[in-house]
Every structure is written in C-alpha cells, then in structure tokens.
C-alpha cells in the first residue's frame, strides 16, 4: 500500500471523496461522447449535484487534479466557434493518459523486463515498490503472463523506512527521520532529500538536514523510522548527487590536493567510468595515448593506495610530486617487508 500522503479525514468524508473521484473517472471512461460540465456537476450519483453549484465546480476541479496526479488527464473541449457562454465538454485525454498499445514491441518489452528484473534482484534499491508496480503494469500493457508473475526472491525493502523515504524524495516532501549514527546515538531530524545514491550495497540519502542546516548524507540502514512526509521543497539547480559517490581517499585532514592519474587509452570507456565513479575530470590525451583523470584527494596516501590497487589496469600517478612520492613510499614499504 502506498504511504499515506493525506491529512486524516473522517471516514464518511474520506469515502465520499474517493468514491467521487473514482466515479468521475468511471463516467468519463465509460461514456462514448464527451460530457458537459452540467451533466457532470449536477450528477448526484457521481457525488456532485449539491444545492451549491459553485462548491461542486470547485470539487470537480480538485478531482480532475487528483486524477491527473494518477496520470489520468481530463481535458476540456470547446468546439471551434463556440460562444463564451457555451459550457465546456470534458473527456479523458487518451493519448496522454493511456499507453500506446502495440507501440511497445515484444523485444522492447522483454528488454525492459530484463532490466527491471536485474534491479529487482538487488537488495540495495530504494524504489523496489515502484519497480514491482512497473513490472506488473508491463504485464497489463503486453498481456504478458511472464511479466505478471509474482516477483521472485526477497520482497522486503532495503530498510523499514525505504518506501516512505522514496515517496518523500519522488514527491519532494520533507520527511522526519530517526537516525542512528555509527556510535549508536539516535537523533530525530527533518530531511529534504535532494538525491539518492547506491554504493557498496548500501543506499545513501543526501539532503538538507534541519538539525545542522547543512547538506548531509545518511545511510539507509541507519534510518530506523520515517514519518509521513509533509511540506514541499525545491532541489537547487547546482546540486549534483554524483559528487557524493565516495572514493576511499575523499576524507582527510587539511586541504584537499588535486591529483592526476593516467590510464591506458585502450581501456574500455565503461571500465574507466566504473573505476573513476565518474567523478573528477577525465581527459583523453591522444598524443600520449592515455586517459588523464584529475580528482581532489583529501588523503593523498590513500589516493596512492587506491591507484596502486588498480595498477594492473594501467593506473599510474602523474602529478603533483606529492602523489608520486606517496605511490613510491607505499611500494617501498611493501618491498622492504618482503625483501
């Protein structure tokens, strides 16, 4: 079930609202011709038809917006040359609402299904619920029994709060969380999630934290509880969550140093992307037949160790002298131990 996104309402009102919205969909979907405003707002079976027409018109507008949130777009039709006083006609905008049946080929649907299944086989995904929905809706689009199968394997989300956090992120709503840090200290804070990344089998949420007033990263499995998301926010255009994918030499004392490594030009671009996490600056040096990767290192010794661990891929330190020296020092320590 989707996380609760509405304020609590009394049950009769709640049922009336849900019934009215679903009924609006039903009458528009089942009618072979567009319906007039009058036909809709005077229909007490649908849930309008009160003595207060202005109120019914407002409800009708809100209900159209609610359906639009579910991807069902109700469009207004005004025949060409119609007088201003003439009332509108309403129908479901089929091209923007419904999938183009037959437009997705069997091969494309299969490719999509394999991609969805690959992601569903992983534990470190924050949007499992959405993927399961996508898989089941693919079944509806392709009439595929295979796509409609229950999803195999573990059905649990990555953390108890994962579905709520995903909804908060997707809808850009603030969310109160309970977070246990590495020392076991639990705090509550309100987070505006600006981005999500997955690395080393964990989900990380990056966002503006009300407690510190800064952008912080929170590991998903340490978020023990998430409350109902409320209040909207905007993610700054300059924010790029890729900057938060971490490398083992990011953190160190003092100022970060820009270091440059080289890699052979023969390496597949996909391997270079995997190795560099697409961070820093990557330049193709055609003259010397190499890639040059420049990245800020908080800990230069750790950067040298990282480079050495990938030496078999052809990674070598280029500049400054500090990284070259650190590289050589690592080798010397190991060689001395074995000499």
């Amino acid at each position, binding site marked *: 079930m989707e996380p609760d996104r509405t304020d609590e309402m009394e049950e009769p009102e709640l049922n009336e609202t849900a*019934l009215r919205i679903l009924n609006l969909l039903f009458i528009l979907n089942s009618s072979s011709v567009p319906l007039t405003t009058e036909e809709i707002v005077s229909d007490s079976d649908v849930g309008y038809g009160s003595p207060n027409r202005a109120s019914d018109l407002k409800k009708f507008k809100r209900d159209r917006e609610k359906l639009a949130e579910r991807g069902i777009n109700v469009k207004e039709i005004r025949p060409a040359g119609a007088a201003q006083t003439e009332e509108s006609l309403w129908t479901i905008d089929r091209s923007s609402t419904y999938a183009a049946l037959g437009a997705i080929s069997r091969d494309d649907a299969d490719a999509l299904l394999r991609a969805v299944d690959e992601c569903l086989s992983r534990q470190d995904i924050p949007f499992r619920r959405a993927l399961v929905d996508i898989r089941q809706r693919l079944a509806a689009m392709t009439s595929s029994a295979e796509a409609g199968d229950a999803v195999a394997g573990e059905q649990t989300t990555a953390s108890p709060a994962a579905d709520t956090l995903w909804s908060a992120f997707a809808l850009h709503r603030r969310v109160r969380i309970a977070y246990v840090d590495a020392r076991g200290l639990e705090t509550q804070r309100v987070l505006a999630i600006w981005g999500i990344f997955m690395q080393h089998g964990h989900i990380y949420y990056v966002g503006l934290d009300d407690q510190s007033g800064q952008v912080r990263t929170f590991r998903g499995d340490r978020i023990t509880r998430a409350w109902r998301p409320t209040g909207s926010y905007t993610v700054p255009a300059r924010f790029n969550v890729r900057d938060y994918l971490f490398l083992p030499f990011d953190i160190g004392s003092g100022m970060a140093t820009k270091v440059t490594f080289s890699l052979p030009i023969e390496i*597949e671009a996909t391997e270079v992307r995997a190795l560099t996490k697409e961070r820093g600056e990557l330049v193709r040096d055609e003259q010397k037949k190499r890639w040059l990767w420049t990245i800020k290192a908080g800990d230069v*010794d750790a950067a040298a160790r990282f480079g050495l661990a990938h030496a078999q891929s052809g990674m070598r330190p280029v500049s400054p002298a500090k990284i070259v020296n650190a590289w050589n020092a690592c080798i010397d320590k*190991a060689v001395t131990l074995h000499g």
Partner: protein
Amino acid sequence: MAKPHLTAEQTVASGIRLLEALSAAPGQTLAVGGACELLACTNAELEQIVDTLSKLSSRSSGARAAITIADGRVTLHGDAALIMPRRFSLEEGMVLAHILDVLDLDDETRERIRAAVGPAQGAMSAPGIVEPARYGSCFARLSEAIEDGIRCTMTYRSLTEGAARTRTIDPLEIQEEHGEVYLVAWDIEKDAERRYRLDRVGEVTFTEESVEHHGALSHSASESLRAQGLVARLVLRPGARTFLLDWAGAADIEPHEDGSMAFSLYYSSESWLFDQVLAAAGELELIEPAELRERLVDYGANLRA
C-alpha cells in the same frame, strides 16, 4: 479483524490499479492473494476497495461497475469499468530512466520505450539518483543471449592482457558480487567456465549457434577462484584494514594472539595480487609461496614512478 482505514488517496490509487489489472487479466479475474500482493494491502483493505468500486455508476448511461469477491477471486463483470493501461507516471518514469541509464540500454530502445509508455508530460529522466557504473554497455545484449540460449563472441580485456581479445562463449548468468557485476560463461576455446567483469566487455555479437549444456557449474566468485588453483598465504598486520578479508578468494582465516591474521587467498591474476599487497603499504605480508614473494619484489621495483 482490524477495521481497514485507507485514506482517500490510497483508495483512489488502489482502485485505479485494481481496475487496470482486472481489465488486463484473462477473464478479468485475479486471485485474492495476487490482488493483495499487487496493491500491497490486506484482505480487509481489498474488500474496502472492492466495496468502493462496486458503487461506481453513471446516471446518464445507466452503466454500473460490477466487481465481486467470491471463491477466493476478485472479478470484474461486463465492460463498463474496463480501463486501458495508463502510461507510466512521472515517478515511475524517473525509476525507469534510472535503470535504463545504469544498464546502458541503447538510445533508440530507450526512445521507443519512452514514446510508447513514458509519462506524457516531462522527459523520462532521473535527476537525483545515481550509482557507480558497473554494468558496462552490453547488459541488454548479454541478458537476451542468456534468456534465448545464444552462443556469442565478445571482446574482453582480462587483467593479464594489454588489449581486448575476442572470445567465443556460452553465456550462463549475470552475477553481482562484492560490488562488481560479472558474466558467468563457458569459454569455448578453454572449455572451462570463466567469469568476466561486465564493465570490461567491449562488444558482443550473436552467433548462429545455440549454447550447449556443460554439466555442473560453479556459481560463486570464490568457487571459481578455487577452481583455478592459484593460492597464496598472507598475514594482515595488527590494526590493518580488515576489509581486505572481504575479498571473494579469502579463506582459512587464522587470528593470531598479537592481533595479526593469517589467511589464504585464491586469486586469478598475479599482478592483481601484487597490486593489493603493494597498496597495503606494509600492512599485508605475502608469506608463501616463496617464489611469489621474490616476484613481488621485482614487480614492485618496476612499478616505482
């Protein structure tokens, strides 16, 4: 039984999903358990949703939605409440865009999918979700070959090779281990099972042949490394970074009283092993075989910048 208490939004969202699923289902019927799984709801909540839907009616046309729960099945009767599958929402479009990015499906396929089922408003994009690239650019083709049992040729550069070389393989499965994604395949020339890191696969071509059955196969990185038979004994110094012991080939870990730890390491590439020992900067000692120690010293000397 606890009284269900769905919000209006939950009832609307689930009601639409249920109508959509029933419309697509053979005979417009679903098992109650399947419907509950689809909507992630309880039986009582499903009854509430069905109760709401069964009240739908149109005064102008006289149509009514007829939906019932009986004999463990939820069924939609007649045509009045049938609805076509909706396009994916912006949220679903965002998830789709992310997985298509990560798995690097080609632009043409991506555009066809977007046009057919993507959200009508806004581009299908995934701002704010990232993960390190590790599937390479051939996931879609390899997964298709696995599903259809197609023998392939592929270019691949191993750790011990300076340039990519073409191999003929029977692809078996894609595995994720220790943050890397591997293709497990039968190398036809070597007549043995091999594992290939997906981000090192260059180009995949389908042959006209089908895969053959190759008998019982090993199915994990550690089993695959053990099968190759290269093993070294190492000691991790006290206080050293113990994550080194997470390597797939690590085995026979033996803690010592001084806090150091001896362990065996199965490996496939000598240069990889040497790089890890050098990167540990004296925290990791290669104990045996003795000749490997000697080669490490030479290797290290040649690697100085």
